[in-house]
């Protein structure tokens, strides 16, 4: 079938994908209609509440997590046996699945999970009424969704990107690629990147400008600190990617030859990509560090050990993250001097990270530890991440890296830090903040089963990859020969991957089970919390704090518990102009405009692109003109009255 000059072949896998998409959509529509939830959906897509936007981030991230996880299952099945032919997933199809897995997991799973948690927890922790610009918060979220949908759609619309999540040129330009894969990657990541930059601006402004009275910089909880530093990294790293993707778009669609062709420079892409790509690694790990600091301190019932060194080491990691990118390019041949400098800076990062690891351990030491599921994930994180960190230092040794480069050793390393760090952190954060998000707790017994199966499955999957990598198995290949001696390692990996998939299903089951039971519904402070996020009702209400809470200590709630009855003191200041945004559909429509622009660029239909631009600009103007009508203004007294009315 021909679709906007693009051939779509209905092979068995595409048909299966199409059928499953239709079945899922129809099932969703029927369920929502039967449960009479259309009103809920309508209010959800227009929401300006930072908690609901955070939930949407995480929900969409979870959908993409399932898709990318399915890709992982397909890959592991294909790799289970030597010379195996599973369905169609060989050659280019394997590359497509592998690229989608990587791109989705990093940009559309890890990032939204963590940004979602930031959205939920940061305003509560710093005593802000909402994120600084709720409208842009919502817009960022929908842009991320659009980007993710573009990447997901590509599989059934003429071929997914197949050049790896790094999309190296010259592979990603010119006639070598099949279909529009790279264009989908380009626009999908670009659109969600715009949203991510907006989120980072929003977060930094919130944390700098909307802290409760009394909260100096050294009284900011560690999760908020991590959100601040992450946002700064996003602010300076993502625009580099935007520029690189812009050039890639021009190379692919408008005939420029900057990255390739006779006279271009392919190494420039690598520089630009990794100048973004390495900070990106810390963008997805620092918020996880913040989650662990919060969780470990809460469940060890102790103040975090070495708070200021924790902050400083995060700042150091953030700073160093911008000067290590060459370590992804040791084998390019930039010369011994460049390689040595970047080897040293790369190894340096182990120092602040080590400080953090020891501080977590010392926080646990002497505390009365409660082994909840959130804590279990945090404890599992420490050794897993240390393994990942050590293999990272091994690869920072330049001569050794020539051996590890592009082997499964690298795959093992990156999954140890991404899964062992980021995904453990995300799950830990979900279990920890679930009551703040939804008002009920996740069942701890199922949670522990889920955590243990996930942790064991994780090590089963990725530990053997170190060994297969050292045996010389190259990454991004779809099979191996029986005489390579790789079968055992790969088979164990595949079994571990299935165990992890089972664990994810267990998590979904836990969500439904706990929702039915609604154990400990509405408990504001189930964990005996220490920071201000546990001082508001569960789930947190959108309009709150007519008078802002006063911050006296880093662990403000704990301070109130120790020096009083556990209620926070509030400021007496009567505020004259409290802005609360009314719900609006414009962010969703605007993201639709971006979708139209992307669609036109991907399929090279200028008319659609122009229409998209016009629509987007008109919507922006419309928003600007109706701004005064789209906000509610309160004074403190009026807000108090409004909250009282809502409670009734």
């Amino acid at each position, binding site marked *: 079938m021909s679709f906007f000059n693009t051939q779509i072949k209905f092979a068995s896998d595409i048909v299966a994908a199409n059928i499953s998409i239709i079945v899922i959509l129809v099932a969703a529509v029927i369920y929502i209609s039967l449960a009479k939830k259309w009103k809920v959906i309508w209010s959800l897509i227009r929401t300006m509440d930072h908690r609901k936007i955070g939930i949407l981030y995480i929900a969409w991230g979870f959908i993409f997590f399932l898709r990318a996880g399915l890709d992982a299952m397909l890959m592991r099945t294909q790799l289970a046996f030597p010379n195996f032919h599973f369905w169609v997933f060989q050659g280019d199809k394997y590359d497509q699945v592998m690229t989608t897995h990587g791109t989705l997991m990093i940009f559309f799973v890890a990032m939204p999970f963590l940004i979602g948690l930031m959205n939920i927890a940061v305003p509560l922790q710093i005593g802000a009424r909402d994120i*600084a*610009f709720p409208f842009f918060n919502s817009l960022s979220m929908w842009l991320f969704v659009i980007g993710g949908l573009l990447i997901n759609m590509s599989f059934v619309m003429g071929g997914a990107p197949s050049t790896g999540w790094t999309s190296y040129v010259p592979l990603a330009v010119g006639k070598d690629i099949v279909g529009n894969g790279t264009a989908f990657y380009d626009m999908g990541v670009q659109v969600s990147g715009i949203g991510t*930059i907006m989120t*980072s*601006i*929003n977060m*930094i*402004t919130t944390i*700098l*400008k*909307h802290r409760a009275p009394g909260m100096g910089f050294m009284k900011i909880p560690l999760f908020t600190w991590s959100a601040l530093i992450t946002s700064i990294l996003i*602010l*300076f790293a*993502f*625009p*580099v990617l*935007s*520029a*690189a993707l*812009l*050039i890639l778009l*021009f190379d692919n669609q*408008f*005939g*420029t*030859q*900057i990255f390739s*062709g*006779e*006279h*271009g*420079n392919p190494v*420039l892409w690598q520089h*630009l990509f990794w100048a973004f790509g390495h900070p990106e690694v810390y963008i997805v790990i620092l918020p996880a560090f913040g989650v662990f600091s919060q969780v470990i301190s809460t469940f060890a019932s102790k103040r975090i050990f070495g708070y200021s060194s924790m902050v400083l080491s995060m700042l150091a990691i953030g700073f160093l993250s911008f000067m290590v990118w060459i370590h992804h390019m040791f084998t390019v041949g930039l010369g011994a001097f460049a390689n040595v400098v970047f080897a040293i800076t790369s190894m340096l990062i182990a120092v602040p990270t080590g400080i953090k690891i020891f501080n977590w351990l010392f926080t646990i030491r002497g505390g009365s530890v409660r082994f909840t599921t959130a804590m279990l994930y945090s404890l599992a994180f420490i050794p897993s991440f240390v393994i990942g960190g050590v293999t990272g230092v091994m690869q920072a040794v330049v001569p050794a890296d020539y051996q590890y480069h592009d082997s499964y050793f690298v795959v093992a390393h990156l999954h140890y830090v991404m899964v062992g760090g980021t995904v453990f952190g995300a799950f830990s954060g979900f279990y920890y903040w679930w009551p703040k998000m939804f008002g009920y707790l996740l069942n701890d017994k199922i949670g522990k089963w889920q955590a243990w199966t996930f942790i064991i499955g994780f090590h089963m999957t990725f530990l053997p990859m170190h060994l297969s990598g050292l045996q010389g198995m190259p990454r991004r290949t779809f099979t191996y020969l029986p005489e390579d001696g790789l079968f055992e390692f790969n088979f164990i990996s595949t079994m571990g991957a299935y165990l992890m998939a089972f664990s994810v299903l267990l998590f979904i089951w836990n969500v439904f089970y706990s929702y039915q039971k609604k154990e400990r519904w509405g408990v504001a402070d189930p964990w005996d919390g220490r920071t201000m996020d546990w001082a508001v009702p569960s789930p947190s209400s959108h309009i709150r704090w007519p008078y802002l809470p006063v911050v006296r200590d880093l662990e403000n709630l704990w301070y109130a518990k120790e020096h009083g009855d556990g209620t926070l003191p509030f400021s007496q200041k009567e505020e*004259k*102009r409290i802005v609360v945004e009314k719900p609006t559909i414009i962010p969703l429509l605007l993201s639709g405009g971006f979708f139209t622009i992307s669609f036109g660029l991907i399929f090279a239909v200028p008319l659609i692109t122009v229409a998209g631009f016009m629509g987007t*600009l008109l919507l922006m*103007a419309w928003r*600007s*003109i109706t*701004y*005064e009508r789209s906000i509610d203004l309160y004074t403190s007294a009026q807000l108090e009255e409004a909250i009282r009315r809502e409670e009734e």
Partner: protein
Amino acid sequence: MGVESNVENSTETLLEYSSPRKTAMFLFICAEAVIFGSLFATYFVMLHHLGDGPGPKEFFKFKEMILPTILLLSSSLTWYLAEKTLHVREKGKTLFFIGLTALLALGFLSLEMIEFLKNIGDGYTLGRSPFISSYYLLVGLHGCHVLFGILWMALLLVHVKTKGSTVANHGRFVSFSIYWHFVDSVWVFIFLLLYALGQFL
């Protein structure tokens, strides 16, 4: 302009309202600066990837770019006047200076389009050589920013015309000022590093 708007315009309210916007705009400018920085870097990497195209010395017509530079830089001044007249609530003058700024920007953009069309007429198309591509990307992106600024000014014209000197309009002016002065300063770098420096490379 009754009593109520006077209360709204108290210094404290203005500061409270504008301060997060200012922060956010400066952060946005940081992001923009990184994008332009990456494209400048790309330009300098591509400086010797000429293919069969011209080098910077024959390609850039320095003298033809002086007039547009003067137009764009003076638009920063007229915008400053627009902002100041809004503060003292001289609505007519504010509208005049916004219009003048937009006209200057439009003049700049037209001259740049003429330059682009001339280049294309000379056979220096987008894909001629990586060097020329990187030039078009950098200058073209800046041109898009100017165009966006003109559209933004049209919108501000409507806002000032209908609402006058309100708190929200002050906020809008704060945001646009930062944007516009940034767009101008990027042009200074383009003018110096591409057109002026190009004469000596």
